């Protein structure tokens, strides 16, 4: 079953959660545009109850990096 990060990514970008891997990034997910990235950050903040500052947000360049930033904030995704 997809985890919470995959579910958020799936909902924001409109892609199936099941097929997502840590390597997925804006090049592999066509709807991951710079504007959609803002929606992703807002959705992650809502889902995990964390505050992501702009420096955190721009590090999230792949699904794996999203997990890594969240882990750095003590979130067990």
């Amino acid at each position, binding site marked *: 079953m997809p985890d919470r990060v995959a579910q958020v990514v799936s909902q924001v970008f409109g892609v199936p959660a099941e097929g997502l891997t840590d390597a997925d990034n*804006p090049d592999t997910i066509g*709807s991951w*545009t*710079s*504007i*959609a*990235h*803002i929606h992703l*950050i807002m959705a992650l903040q809502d889902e995990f109850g964390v505050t992501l500052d*702009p*420096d955190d*947000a*721009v590090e999230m*360049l792949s699904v794996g990096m999203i997990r890594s930033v969240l882990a750095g904030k003590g979130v067990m995704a």
Partner: protein
Amino acid sequence: MDEKTVMIQELGPEHLKAVVQLHQECFAPETNFSTRLGPRFLRASYNFFVKDPKAFGFVALYEGKTVGFICGRLDFFVGALNRYRAPVAALALLGRPRLLFAMDFRKRLVQAVKTFTARRKTEERKSTNATREGPTATLASLGALPDYAHLRVSDRLLSTAESLCRKQQMHFVRASVRRANISSRFLYRKRGYVEDPGTSTDDGVFCYLSLEDEA
């Protein structure tokens, strides 16, 4: 809508009116020095990128509508741009004297005057925190309507500008962006630009794309 129908054209005088309007839509006056000085100042600013021999600019058109633009120069641009638009800036300020009482505006004005007087490139390098060695193009402005983001307008404009810079033997492309502007910083990072913490400030981030890496 089809990405292929977005057309990129070189910026010309015929695009200035649309680019000024687009600038006003993309850059809020609260955060943008040029927007606050009004459309006449903006027109003069963008005309620089049409007239200056080292400058370049492109617009993105979708179904005849201008949906994005990019401008830059094959060198630093701030000093040359400020010298070009100084008379219009002075007139714009005369019409908006209250701007002089806004602290952030005064700070930017002092910075602009410094670059205006920076005749030597080394001085401009200091005033713009530049650190990279080698021919460096500087992006001055990139704007795109959010409603057309799915067409990857900004990506296409950046790609066109980077190709031009590569053809012109530039080694780096440099851009600056507000630290809080997540979508623009994300876009640059995604395209391989590296943020330089050494030259960035609390408010702004400088980033570079190495064109040599791709050679």
